[in-house]
């Protein structure tokens, strides 16, 4: 960073000296000039402040509160009673009593559920769907999900699933809105927890079919999760919102597949007056709750409820939904609520040190003035940071953390509740009190949402959780991002203006060059075009790299290792070709090749790179804020500090070594595969690492239509390549 600071004095002195003879420039211009002239210190300060503000986010987190008054959680006594638990237990026994494994028995559970639903007086139908293989379609990345008419004909009957859906039409309600309850179960391998989930779902459903306070319809989806929870729920939602009326042969096949299974049922249901394969709908969905019971994984002194909320591309449900669940679970049912936490961070020493330091600072400040105390205990800080990190990570990843993600695609607020008991599920006496709690919790949530007159809109949509009852809202966490990104345009401007002014300065000093300054000035002022061309070519390469997986997917007999290798080799090959086509990137156009221009070349390239990185990060922050924030943490320092290796040789030794290590470390960290590799090693150790991991990771990103994939390949990777380009720049 020697060069910009060298030129620091120049613009300032020129402006100050020129202001004596000319009129004074306006304040805003002067401010801008000041910032640009001190770009090194500004960018250093901003960068450090950005990282610091991220670190103190857990301290800035506020307690959650229920924003929408209409929700009134817990204001009514729960009606879910021991009677309903008995019903749930009966259902569990019936499910476990069914035979499993054979194809024949696949319809047994839906049939059982349907019979129970009909008995409770509600409507029921089966929803049949194909599990669809997620394929990468680069051209419909953000497009509608509507085009699923291409149902592959080679789908065999074995890949069809059957969801059972029950609908309670609210008595006296107008049916404009509905609340959806989802219980996933794996029909292939029914376990006790699955059966308990279904039992709990049914007992709540039958309770709700009797209550008089319903204003919204209740839809219960018993989702067969044999092909993944998400697949079944999203298939149902797709048919709910975007049904395909055109029935092709492939569609017919679905019906014929299960005709023999359903046939028997149809007889039965006709007797009861319900045709059960017609897709039925209710109104606009107000909220959805996915709940399931999992066997306990860890020792706990209380029954535990874990909440998953992240949907695709970092979308979150309205905070009020999480609030009411948390409020009811903690204050009414006495459950322990937790959200996803990065466990590796919980025991990290440096985080503890930071926490203790902050605590100490806060205590010192508190000593001066008790109102200045801001901190939280170090243990809380570490836990908050770990939760915040996982919250950010899952939002940044853009992959939904459960089947609730399917709802968010249709702007429906949804969360997944995983309830696990303190004692193993095998204990039958214990699990009835556990079911009672779970049932009352879900009843309470449904009742709260039922109270809602308008849709969820009062509370936050953009937030990070630092614990189940603490959150950081967008207004706070965007400061960190703004601080991180703001040095980029400043630096770009500084580099560009530094080059220009430096050159004109030198031009003034040596009047001999002034002879052809007319043409030289014109060339110089358009010189950024060359750098822009390089940047453009690299970004073009990014687009090609983005589309390559679509081609690689067509290859027969590929493993993730070979795919990864192919991808890498092809990318490098294309990069080389593009270099050749666009002309040697390091050479100059035109015959004016004095060394001073060449040395300035990398500076201007860096300016354009930094500008493009700023634009990319800014765009990404609109699509997925968390991804942009994490990306900025890697990209911004790398872009700021990048310096040609050859240039370092001319510096002092200490400075050169420092710059070199920083550059190399950041360059390695900034390379996405390397980052993943380091993260893996730090969390899991060296074992089981393979080249294909990165491919698998990327595959999951594009399969879930995550915008993070676009960011990585279109913004991050080209910027990294440009930084490497600058690093290796021949002076």
């Amino acid at each position, binding site marked *: 960073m020697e060069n910009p600071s060298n030129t*620091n004095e120049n613009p*300032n002195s020129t402006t*100050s000296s020129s*202001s*004596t003879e000319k*009129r004074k420039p306006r304040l805003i211009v*002067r*401010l801008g000039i*000041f910032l640009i002239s*001190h770009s090194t*210190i500004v960018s250093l*300060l901003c960068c450090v402040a950005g990282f610091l503000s991220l670190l103190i986010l857990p301290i800035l987190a506020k307690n959650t509160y229920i924003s929408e008054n209409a929700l009134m959680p817990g204001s009514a006594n729960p009606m879910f009673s021991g009677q309903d638990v008995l019903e749930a237990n009966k259902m569990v026994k019936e499910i476990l009593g069914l035979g499993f494994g054979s194809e024949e028995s696949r319809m047994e559970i839906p049939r059982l559920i349907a019979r129970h639903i009909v*008995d409770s*007086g509600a409507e029921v139908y089966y929803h049949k769907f194909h599990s669809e293989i997620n394929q990468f379609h680069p051209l419909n990345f953000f497009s509608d999900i*509507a085009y699923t008419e291409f149902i592959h004909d080679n789908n065999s009957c074995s890949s069809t699933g059957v969801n059972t859906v029950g609908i309670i*039409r609210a*008595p*006296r*309600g*107008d*049916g*404009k*809105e509905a609340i959806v309850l989802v219980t996933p179960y794996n029909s292939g391998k029914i376990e006790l927890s699955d059966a308990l989930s279904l039992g709990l779902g049914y007992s709540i459903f039958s309770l709700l079919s009797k209550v*008089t306070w319903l204003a919204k319809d209740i839809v219960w989806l018993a989702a067969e999760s044999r092909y993944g929870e998400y697949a079944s729920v999203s298939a149902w939602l797709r048919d709910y*919102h*975007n*049904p395909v*009326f*055109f*029935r092709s042969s492939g*569609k017919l096949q679905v019906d014929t597949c299960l005709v023999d299974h359903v046939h028997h049922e149809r007889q039965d249901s006709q*007797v*009861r*007056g319900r045709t059960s394969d*017609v897709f*039925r*709908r209710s*109104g*606009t969905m107000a909220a959805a709750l996915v709940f399931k019971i999992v066997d306990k994984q860890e020792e706990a002194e209380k029954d535990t409820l874990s909440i998953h909320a992240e949907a695709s591309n970092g979308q979150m449900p309205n905070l009020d939904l999480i609030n009411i669940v948390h409020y009811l679970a903690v204050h009414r049912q006495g459950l322990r609520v937790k959200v996803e936490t990065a466990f590796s961070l919980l025991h990290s020493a440096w985080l503890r040190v930071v926490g203790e330091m902050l605590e100490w600072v806060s205590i*010192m400040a508190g*000593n*001066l003035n008790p109102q200045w105390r801001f901190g939280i205990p170090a243990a809380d800080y570490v836990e908050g940071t770990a939760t915040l990190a996982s919250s950010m990570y899952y939002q940044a990843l853009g992959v939904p953390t459960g089947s609730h993600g399917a709802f968010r*695609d*249709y*702007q429906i607020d949804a969360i997944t509740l995983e309830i696990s008991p303190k004692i193993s599920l095998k204990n039958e006496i214990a699990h009835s009190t556990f079911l009672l709690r779970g049932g009352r919790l879900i009843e309470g949530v449904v009742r709260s949402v039922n109270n809602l*007159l*308008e*849709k969820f*809109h*009062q509370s936050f949509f953009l937030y990070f959780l630092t614990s189940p009852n603490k959150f950081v809202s967008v207004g706070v966490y965007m400061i960190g991002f703004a601080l991180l990104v703001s040095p980029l345009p400043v630096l770009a401007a500084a580099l560009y203006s530094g080059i220009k002014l430096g050159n004109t300065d030198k031009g003034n000093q040596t009047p001999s060059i002034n002879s052809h300054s007319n043409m030289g000035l014109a060339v110089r002022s358009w010189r950024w075009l060359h750098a822009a061309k390089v940047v453009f070519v690299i970004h073009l390469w990014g687009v090609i790299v983005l589309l390559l997986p679509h081609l690689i997917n067509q290859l027969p007999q590929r493993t993730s290792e070979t795919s990864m290798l192919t991808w890498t080799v092809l990318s490098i090959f294309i990069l080389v070709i593009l270099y050749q086509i666009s002309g040697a990137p390091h050479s100059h156009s035109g015959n004016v090749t004095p060394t001073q221009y060449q040395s300035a070349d990398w500076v201007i390239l860096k300016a354009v790179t930094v500008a493009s990185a700023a634009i990319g990060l800014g765009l990404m922050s609109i699509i997925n804020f968390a991804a942009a924030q994490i990306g900025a943490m890697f990209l911004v320092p790398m872009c700021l500090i990048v310096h040609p290796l050859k240039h370092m040789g001319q510096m002092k030794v200490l400075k050169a070594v420092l710059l070199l290590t920083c550059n190399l470390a950041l360059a390695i960290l900034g390379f996405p595969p390397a980052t993943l590799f380091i993260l893996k090693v730090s969390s899991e150790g060296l074992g089981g690492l393979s080249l294909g991991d990165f491919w698998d990771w990327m595959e999951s990103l594009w399969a879930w239509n995550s915008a993070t994939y676009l960011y990585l390949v279109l913004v991050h990777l080209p910027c990294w390549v440009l930084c490497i380009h600058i690093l290796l720049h021949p002076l």
Partner: protein
Amino acid sequence: MASRSSILLFCFYFFFFFLISHCFIVPIYAESNEEQGEEEEFSEELLLKPLPDRKVLAHFHFDSRTPPTNTYGRHHRLFPKAIYQLVKKFHIREMELSFTQGRWNYERWGGFDPISSSNAKPPGVELWAVFDVPFDQVDATWKNLTHALSGLFCASINFLESSTAYSAPSWGFRSHSSSLRYGALPTEAVCTENLTPWLKLLPCRDKAGLAAIMDRPSIYKGYYHSQRLRLASTESSSDEGKGTGIVLEQTLTVVFQPSVQRASSAYSGDRLLQPSWSIGSLFRRKVTGCCVLAKSSRVFLELERDLIAEIDKFEMENGIFGVDGMVSEGSWNNTSFELSVLPDKLIRDANGLHDRSSSVLYEFSVEKYSDSVPLNVGITWKLPVFWLCHQAPFHASRFLMGSGNERGSIAISLKSTQSHEGFLGHEVASSLTNSNGCSVRSIVFQVVPWYVKVYYHTLQIFIDGQPHAVTDVIEKIHVSPSEDKMSPGMLEVVLTFPCTMQSATLTIDFDKGFLHIDEYPPDANRGFDIPSALISFPDFEASGNFLKDNPSKSRLLFKLQEKRLVQSYTEVLLVPLTTPDFSMPYNVITFTCTVLALYFGSLLNILRRRVGEEERFLKSQAAMKLGLIPQLLAKFSAKLRLKQQGPPQPMQQSSTFGPKLLFKVILVAAVAVGWHLYFK
């Protein structure tokens, strides 16, 4: 105080009147009625009917009529004055107003019988009226009428005044009429405050007669509650003298869930026993006599044809042919069920086909019951019976497709209930079978508010999963596109389907519009309603045929056998529109004010600045004082340092005393902090 005493007085008076009437007025009144053909009439009737899904339908029917003014005069004894004035003032030829809560379940409660086709209404308020005024005055009359009704029924019917809320269907809603206006308010909540004015129109209010059993908590606890008022008048200039006068028909249709005792809900076989109920258990009151002003006061209990058939079948199977065992013979106490009260009369549907059973009506006359001997019609089931109700030929449902705030589509799907084939064979086959096979017509009438911008050219029709050309299916279409903030869009279309069709779907795309900030309702985030569409099947007519057995001239039975189109209302839809963030006007104001201030500030700056003069001034100043510029620069740097908030960077030669000052401040602060800590 005054009101209470007047009520007491009224009660006393009423009781007195009641006593007297029982002694002698009724016979006299009845006789006089027989003598004069032209007389005001009032009759009250109640129809009870068990429904297949273990619920009970109660349908109150109050009928008031008055002869035309020119033969009878303007003074009425029974007919409500408010309604008479309404008819007179607004020249109403026909009007119907309904307040509904809950949805009629066409699948389970029937869609083919007269009750459902005339009494199943969309949730909220629905109003239509035909006026007898010149064409250019219709809209003005409608507006006045909505205000009058709004006051009369304590409801926000006046929202139908705005031209965006009502439409003028030409043939889709009813037969051709240029002066028909139709409007619906799907969000209107219905409560007792709407019922009380409705009851006030009855001559006995709810103090006596059948209306007395309307226990408010009971009737509002039902699954469906529809209170309807229908007016038909011949008080017009065109048919002077020969009309029937004004007929006011007030109906209240309620669907109850009878309370089930735990013991009786036990499984018997695989099926549940139907719950037993009686008027006393449904309404928590019993009929304690008729309204003395009523010409007739009856309670009917209807058993559907399919139910009778089921019972017959069951008895056949079990070989029970008792002397009075056949239900068809009209026993009220047989192996399947038992009525709690001996019916006065049995009426059978003459329309029933001969190979099938026909529906049965038990008639109970209220006249002979009193306070001491209340009428408590009820039914006790002995055997589990399961039957299906009579469904409309197609089950219509409507839903929204798509997601997001930009666009979507409305789909209307018709699913065959397979019940029409039987009817086609007998009733309408001859009229339907033409050269190109059998076909069924259906009329879709749909009103869409203007902010849902429907593109009518995107109408697509799928029959049995295959797309069909619109021109093949549509027989007749009338579209009046919406005008922004002026009028709603309206679609009337006659579709012709082949009889063998299983399912048909109509889809039509729309864009979601933006509203002006003050056009949003208070609960804008709830979404916006699209009123129900009306699907009617002109080839089918729902009518009972009790005529042969209707010597008592029951108004309700006349009504039941009136030929009516089979029609069904679809669901109300809720469209979420983009809404501004109403909770943050402050932010918006601040932001816009900042932008405006910046703009105007710089504009003024540029306008009032004289560059040449300023330069001259600066020059002269520089000539006079040299020390000014360093001073200015010092000020400037101090400002900047404040702004940056970081540790000071000693880089400008001009800021000579900056670091020193700062150092002093820091020193003082550190001393203070140390002092503080030391003494703590």
